């Protein structure tokens, strides 16, 4: 017989462990629409991911200061998405720049799914 508190803790742990699976129903098509789309609410010079990354994630992008950006598609750049801290750092900055807010977990999962699918 499992004591009540332990049972609650176990349930909670299962819910937390299960949460990523539930939210990770990543949708590459939604990610594509998000990546290619024009957004509002962010900074005027960066209305879209494509402002710097171009509409082809397999191609080189360019920062507004003129510096090349390596391709975002994992197929064109094996180093992409290998460093979670780097991924979160740039989602935070660039979502603020493009949308004026942080991206949701679902938005990030969708974009990653898109960039890993092409």
């Amino acid at each position, binding site marked *: 017989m499992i004591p009540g508190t332990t049972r609650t803790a176990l349930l909670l742990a299962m819910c937390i462990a299960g949460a990523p699976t539930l939210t990770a129903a990543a949708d590459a098509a939604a990610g594509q629409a998000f990546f290619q789309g024009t957004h509002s609410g962010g900074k005027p*010079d960066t209305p879209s991911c494509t402002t710097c990354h171009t509409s082809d994630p397999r191609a080189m992008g360019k920062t*507004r*200061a*003129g*510096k090349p950006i390596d391709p975002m598609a994992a197929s064109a750049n094996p180093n992409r998405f290998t460093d979670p801290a780097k991924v979160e750092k740039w989602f935070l*900055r660039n979502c603020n720049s493009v949308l004026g807010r942080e991206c949701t977990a679902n938005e990030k999962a969708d974009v990653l799914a898109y960039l890993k699918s092409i």
Partner: protein
Amino acid sequence: MSRLRVTLAAACTIAFGAAAFAEENEGGIMPVQDPTTQAECSACHMAYPPQLLPQESWHAIMADLSNHFGEDASLDPATARTIENYLVSNTGSMRGVDPANPPLRITEMNWFTHEHGQRLRNRAAGDSRIGSISNCVGCHGGAANGNFGD
């Protein structure tokens, strides 16, 4: 060999060595030496040498990284502090700069506008290979190594 002669030889080596370096490095500015500053700043643009702006400008720029020339360039506080310390301790005050209202752009500095007139600005804006007047290496191939010679 007398001690005097050794000293003289050493002095000459230093003097001529320095002269040769200065000649090679004409237009030279010490590039960023701090690895954190180099890595973080050069993610989007050449890591601009601290000497190109006065201390007041670097303080102001580092105080508002979430609005960094039209983009969010936020850093964790520890990293930002490291970079700010490096920048301000490798430059000084500059003549003609209002400390209460310092320029935020290198391209606004008098020395910069003197060196880069309208013709060069138009060229930079109109040439997609350069893209921006703030892209030093678009014209100065050795800029990242501190060589801004034409």
